């Protein structure tokens, strides 16, 4: 099938195209040089913005954690539901929507690729079952490896190569995409009711520090040539004064970066950018973090922006979630995942009038605006921790318009407003920068070669938004911009028009990307390892791996490792 998108303003940062009027030709799900104009289906995009399909680097949309969140929050569902249509399935949920609804809502906003972070390897099958049921999107998931006993043991003994072989095995076994590290060492300590307080604290029993885990896995990541960097949720998340921990975390892998490629991705950075000694004196540490990031090229960040709404927080960071329950008094779930990780869920409401929440809102935007290079900071809400992903258009409006930010600033807690750096920040992003922060930069950081750009050979994932960049001033007409990004005029996935003006036209299955890491000496499943499974896991080894036929649409990416 051939498709021709005519006369749109193209924003394709990876290929350096900034708002030029061009045609995009698509054949068989790929972008090509040209198509037969008389035969191809034509889309008239004149006066519209054409961007690559959106890429989300961090959103919790599948897995046992999300599903437990759904069970915990019946009240989240009954007001927000979608009826069945001839094309789509019904669904419920606001902050933790059901899988189909997640796919449709992303597609309506022009998103086509999403990454599900924090998959406990033990729950890999469940996660992939839910990803199979998430339509319209290409997706991948990151296994949690920072507190896995095997990793801790090998790193303690300094056996980096051996550790790399196990990580490669785990990546292929669980069909994962990147190494996710959550509160390194802290989750293992949480198993015995403790936590680590900084990156040089000892992990009980293992006698290893978070610094060693981070550095070890960063080296492993490099040895295995994984496309993404290590994806790190720092220690001390959500505690006043934790910006120092975040800076320490970035610093500790400074020497491991080589060339252009970053060495570490700090995720939902807003939650680890608090300054101050307690909740009364907490303020934004965005300035310090931005200053560090501006001077060092080995870090990428994503925001974890807070939205003033009712949401559900869920992370693998058990001790943090317990703290949040203590703070809010809300119902909670906390769980220890055997030898691998922990997890927790607490419903949470961000209020404008709360000093801390308003500071958090401001910190996220400050980070995004103070980090000068848009290729290094990405737009996320850490869905659903900071707010549901359906609010992305609102964040785009805040990026593009000082006026939009001012309108919110007027309504937030006055003490937070007086401490916010936003009134003194004049920066307003252009559509080109928005395209970087929402798709190109994320695709580049993830090492997705076929996503996030519109060059010849790329996947034909395109989003077209109905605004004319020539005759709109986004800083004044921020509401128009927001509405345009809420409902993409067209969303094209794999060369097919899947959504038009906020209506789903067809249900398509997306692929699940995973890494087939090829090491020279793959680990052997010995009797010893089987015995460890019997001793430490509740499942036998034979039931553990996710086989390829488990994935509905499998898209393996072969990686040649250096070990």
């Amino acid at each position: 099938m051939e498709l021709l998108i005519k006369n749109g303003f193209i924003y394709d940062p990876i290929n350096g195209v900034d708002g030029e009027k061009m045609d995009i030709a698509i054949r068989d799900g790929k972008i090509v040089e040209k198509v037969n104009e008389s035969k191809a289906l034509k889309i008239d995009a004149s006066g519209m913005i054409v961007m690559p399909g959106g890429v989300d680097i961090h959103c919790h949309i599948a897995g046992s954690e999300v599903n437990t969140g759904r069970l915990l929050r019946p009240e989240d569902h009954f007001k927000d539901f979608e009826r069945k249509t001839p094309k789509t399935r019904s669904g419920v949920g606001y902050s933790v929507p059901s899988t189909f609804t997640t796919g449709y809502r992303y597609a309506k906003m022009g998103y086509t690729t999403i990454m599900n972070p924090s998959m406990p390897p033990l729950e890999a099958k469940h996660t992939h079952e839910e990803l199979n049921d998430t339509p319209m999107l290409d997706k991948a998931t990151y296994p949690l490896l920072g507190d896995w006993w095997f990793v801790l043991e090998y790193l303690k003994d300094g056996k980096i190569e051996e550790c790399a072989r196990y990580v490669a095995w785990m990546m292929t076994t669980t069909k994962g995409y990147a190494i996710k590290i959550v509160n390194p060492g802290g989750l293992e300590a949480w198993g015995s009711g403790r936590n680590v307080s900084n990156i040089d604290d000892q992990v009980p029993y293992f006698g290893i520090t978070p610094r060693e885990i981070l550095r070890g896995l960063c080296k492993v990541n490099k040895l295995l040539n994984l496309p993404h960097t290590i994806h790190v949720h720092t220690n001390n998340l959500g505690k006043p004064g934790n910006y120092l921990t975040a800076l320490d975390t970035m610093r500790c892998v400074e020497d491991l970066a080589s060339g252009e490629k970053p060495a570490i991705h700090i995720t939902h950075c807003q939650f680890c950018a608090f300054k101050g000694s307690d909740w009364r004196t907490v303020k934004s540490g965005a300035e310090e973090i931005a200053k560090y990031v501006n001077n060092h090229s080995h870090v990428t960040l994503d925001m974890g922006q807070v939205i003033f709404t009712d949401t559900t927080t869920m992370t693998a960071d058990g001790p943090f979630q317990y703290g949040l329950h203590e703070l809010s008094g809300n119902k909670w779930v906390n769980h220890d995942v055997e030898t691998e990780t922990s997890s927790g869920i607490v419903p949470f409401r961000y209020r404008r009038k709360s000093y801390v929440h308003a500071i958090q809102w401001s910190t996220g935007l400050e980070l995004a605006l103070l980090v000068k290079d848009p290729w290094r900071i990405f737009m996320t809400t850490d869905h659903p921790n900071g707010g549901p992903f359906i609010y992305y258009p609102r964040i785009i409006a805040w990026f593009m318009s000082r006026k939009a930010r001012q309108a919110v600033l007027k309504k937030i807690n006055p003490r937070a407003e007086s401490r916010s750096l936003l009134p003194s920040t004049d920066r307003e992003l252009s559509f080109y920068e928005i395209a970087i922060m929402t798709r190109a930069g994320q695709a580049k950081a993830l090492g997705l070669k076929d996503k996030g750009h519109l060059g010849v050979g790329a996947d034909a994932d395109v989003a077209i938004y109905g605004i004319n960049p020539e005759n709109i001033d986004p800083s004044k007409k921020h509401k128009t911009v927001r509405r345009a990004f809420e409902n993409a005029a067209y969303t094209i996935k794999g060369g097919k028009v899947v959504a038009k003006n906020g209506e789903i036209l067809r249900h398509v299955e997306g692929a699940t990307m995973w890494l087939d890491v090829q090491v020279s000496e793959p680990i052997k499943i010995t009797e010893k390892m089987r015995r460890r499974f019997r001793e430490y896991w509740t499942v036998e080894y034979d039931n553990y791996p996710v086989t390829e036929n488990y994935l509905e649409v499998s898209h393996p990416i072969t990686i040649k490792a250096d070990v």
Partner: protein
Amino acid sequence: MINLHPLKEFRVPVIGECINPDIFQGKTREGIAGLTIWEGNKQKKLGELFKVEEISTGQQTERTTVAIHGDVSKVRRIGLCMTNGEIAIHGDVGMHLGEEMEGGKISVHGNVGRWAGSMMNGGTIEIHGNAGDYLGAPYRGSSKGMRGGKIIVHGNAGNEAGAYMRRGVIKIYGTAGQFVGLRMHNGTIYVQKGCEGRAGACMTGGKIVVGGFLESVLPTFTIESVKKKVKIEEDDTVEGAFYLFLGDLAENSKGKLYVLKEKNPHLSCYERLL
């Protein structure tokens, strides 16, 4: 005044969100009959399920009055978010009556289903029959309780009346089930006759007055004093000696639970603790 008569006995749930004076206001009879309503999984017109009558009272008042004559116990969510006007129901009515109501009045001459006045913010609901469980309580899982308004039940109420309540008054002139005022934060609940037990479990504030038999007070409540009378609301004070208990201590809180001394001689053992 609009009169609605059900045309048949409903066998599947009907979502009657459109039966609301706010929506009826300014519409003609035909306009009202043309409102959409879900019966089970089928979308229907209000006129297909109810006979709609318009009775001219000659009064050009702003308030719109709606009267339903007949059994509507399968019809849910009548008066959802209503802000003014009046609904009178002569018969039994289904779940979620007056959910998130802001103002106006609903009176029922019959029994109501569960979640009557759920999450209401204002207005009045008067029930002359019995009320089901979760009177004025939020939907399952939610902690958004009643934030204002008044519910009067002349019959009995079910379990968990006034759960998560934050403001407002609930008066039950009959008996109440278990867990009256579960996790309530503020507001007043008055039960004239007895209630089944576990009154005020996990309450963090507010006032529960039991004017009848209460088998036992939760062990996480302590006796504070004996009061001669208790004020329920403006111009409504209940006379008679009441034991005043404070709790729930499991929540480290001091909500007030008043229990009538006369009807509860078995609680006299608490008096030696005074």
